[in-house]
């Protein structure tokens, strides 16, 4: 019981320490926050920008980044949404200007085949190797009988 409580507490503390920074950290540097028409639009916007990589600070998504260019791009994306462009069109807009790099999920095409199917290939190769090893050992038959004098383990 006590252990459960402390475990839950520990999980809570751990969870809180990894929670995203409070949004006021952003507010000061954003001169004019984006205004959304409704919740659905905001959700669509957030889903879209979290799939896009910030070009300046390359380990953050466009949603998380505080770089000036990220502000500009977020504004541009919202404008494009207001113009009635689809998500795919907006992604295409950014790829045409900044390259495939902006997509966290690269598109499946000939030059990204290795990226997409490489892990599967590795798995197959690994599976084959394991199979070979197992077969090899199975082929040897049962382990040799221990000598009758019973000094098992002595050679180790």
């Amino acid at each position: 019981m006590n252990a459960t409580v402390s475990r839950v507490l520990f999980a809570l503390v751990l969870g809180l320490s990894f929670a995203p920074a409070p949004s006021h950290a952003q507010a000061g540097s954003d001169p004019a926050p984006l205004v959304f028409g409704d919740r659905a639009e905001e959700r669509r916007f957030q889903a879209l920008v979290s799939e896009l990589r910030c070009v300046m600070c390359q380990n953050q998504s466009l949603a998380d980044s505080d770089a000036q260019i990220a502000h500009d791009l977020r504004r541009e994306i919202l404008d494009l949404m207001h113009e009635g462009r689809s998500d795919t069109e907006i992604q295409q807009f950014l790829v045409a200007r900044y390259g495939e790099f902006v997509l966290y999920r690269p598109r499946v095409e000939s030059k990204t085949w290795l990226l997409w199917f490489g892990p599967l290939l590795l798995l197959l190769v690994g599976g084959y190797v394991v199979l070979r090893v197992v077969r090899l050992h199975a082929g040897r038959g049962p382990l040799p009988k221990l000598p009758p004098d019973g000094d098992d383990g002595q050679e180790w």
Partner: protein
Amino acid sequence: MAASKLGRWVPLLVFAGLAVLLAAGVWLSRNPNREALPSPLIGKPAPAFELPVLHEPGRLATLEELKGAPFVLNVWGSWCVSCRAEHPVLTKFAESKRVRVIGYNWKDEHADAVRWLEEFGNPFWMVLVDYEGRYAIDWGIYGAPETYLVDAGGIIRWKHVGPLTDAVVAGELLPALAKVEAAAEAQR
């Protein structure tokens, strides 16, 4: 027996494979500018724009009027520390008068930009002003400094992200410019 002898080499082979991968990673990361994104606009028409000119209030410059001869477009801002660092290199290049060097004053304040050029010297044939950053997105600009080479037909031929150095000018910009000039010569 032969199989198990071969099997003994497997760990070594795996290790050698990993070592090669590691070496390749180190080799690939030798470029200090490796975080620069390759521009998808190379070989494509430069995006059209209509932008104010810093020293000529009321005038709007367009891409069309710049076509007919190659030009170098340098993205800078008075807030940009690396722009200050590349300024002597850019000035030396501009003073060779081989090609028009056009400034792209990005995300700046008019007074700051004018003061910066007065203080450090103005190497630019013309300075375009984009304080909103609207056309910068079309150009795929994501920081300053960035430098483009556009040929006489308005096609982007080369781009450099980060400050220009003498090595970059001599090793990349001048050869790219020579190619652009040769192509224009051949068309004539």
